[in-house]
């Protein structure tokens, strides 16, 4: 949070959303909680397609329940849909959401609709007092300029780099896949720990060794869990299933998680098609822990395209597509926060 940066109107709040999420939402409902005079959590879900209004509203309120400091909410609807006879789209869903938020003690204070052409207030249909505004009003807002100035970038989805190695790499990686003996596991974990602490130590041979280690299911699981270590003030060891599902007792060392993802991308350059699925699963799982479920879903899809039916990615994709939020991301004390300058 940058204390000196204050938002003064809807354009500022709408400018903040892509910075908060890391991408520009499309066909989405975005709810922001208000905690007194502060914006709290940002939640983005797909706009309802066939979901019943009450079910959809209840799901969104359940997601926001983790924010026990929320006193109110605002809603941004990103869509190019129109309602019947030119009316606002999703009227029944917004009505159900308004009622559910009221009941949950975080009433909806305002709502806006953002299309590909303009944005306007959703709740007021009187164009004399609430006319459509150009999208430029968002991009040229003080908040957008200030966020960019503080180093915030809306980077969007990072596509993995293509394989750039030799033709014999696949065979070489296959030949180095560990058997899974305790010594193999210890060696792989020690190498992964060393490279996570010092990514500059990654060389062609060590990249190949790690790519091979990730092909072994049991070793892969250990390497994934080894990314997560508490930042400080926590001396216990979380259980493996708790780590995997994001039930973390303390704030993880998020800088280490960032390094693990960067290493994952680096290893992808040294890993040919058909062997990239474990790395794509790792990158996606870490994004899910960060609260970036949409990106995670895309990495899991790429993983199952790389290796058809790749079980870990299939299961993680199911977890994400059912709308499960990692508890570590739902808790403001443990959640990932993007690094920004001051």
């Amino acid at each position, binding site marked *: 949070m940058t204390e000196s940066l204050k*938002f003064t109107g809807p354009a500022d709040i709408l400018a*903040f959303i892509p910075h908060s999420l890391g991408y520009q939402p499309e066909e989405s409902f975005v709810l922001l909680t208000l905690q007194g005079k502060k914006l709290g959590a940002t939640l983005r879900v797909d706009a309802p397609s066939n979901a019943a209004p009450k079910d959809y509203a209840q799901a969104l309120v359940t997601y926001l329940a983790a924010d026990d400091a929320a006193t109110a909410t605002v809603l941004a609807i990103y869509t190019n849909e129109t309602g019947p006879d030119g009316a606002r789209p999703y009227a029944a869903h917004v009505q159900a959401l308004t009622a559910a938020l009221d009941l949950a003690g975080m009433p909806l204070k305002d709502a806006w609709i953002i299309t590909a052409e303009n944005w306007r207030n959703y709740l007021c249909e009187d164009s004399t007092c609430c006319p459509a505004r150009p999208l430029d009003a968002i991009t040229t807002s003080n908040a957008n300029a200030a966020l960019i100035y503080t180093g915030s970038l809306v980077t969007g989805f990072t596509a993995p780099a293509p394989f750039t190695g030799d033709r014999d790499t696949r065979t070489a990686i296959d030949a180095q896949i560990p058997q899974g003996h305790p010594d193999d596991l210890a060696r792989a974990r020690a190498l992964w720990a060393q490279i996570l602490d010092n990514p500059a130590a990654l060389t062609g041979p060590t990249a190949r060794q790690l790519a091979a280690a990730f092909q072994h299911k049991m070793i892969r699981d250990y390497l994934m869990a080894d990314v997560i270590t508490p930042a400080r003030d926590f001396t216990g060891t979380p259980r493996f299933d708790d780590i995997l599902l994001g039930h973390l007792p303390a704030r993880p060392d998020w800088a280490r998680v960032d390094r693990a993802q960067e290493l994952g991308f680096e290893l992808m350059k040294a890993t040919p098609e058909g062997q990239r699925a474990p790395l794509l699963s790792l990158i996606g799982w870490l994004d899910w822990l960060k609260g970036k479920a949409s990106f995670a879903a895309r990495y899991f899809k790429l993983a199952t395209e790389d290796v058809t039916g790749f079980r870990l990615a299939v299961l993680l994709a199911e977890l994400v597509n059912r709308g499960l939020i990692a508890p570590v991301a739902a808790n403001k004390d443990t*959640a990932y926060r993007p690094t920004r300058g001051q």
Partner: protein
Amino acid sequence: MGSAFIMTEDDQRPENPSAAEDTLELRLLTAAPGTGPADVSQDEHPLDE
């Protein structure tokens, strides 16, 4: 009196699952259908009122 439990192909344990796969299978047994991917950010900011 218990009722007959019929195992279908979908209930078969996959071959050689890893610990992560087992954990996810178990978690999904109790996961309700949801809204699709839900993104969340705790990036707080002050409002000027």
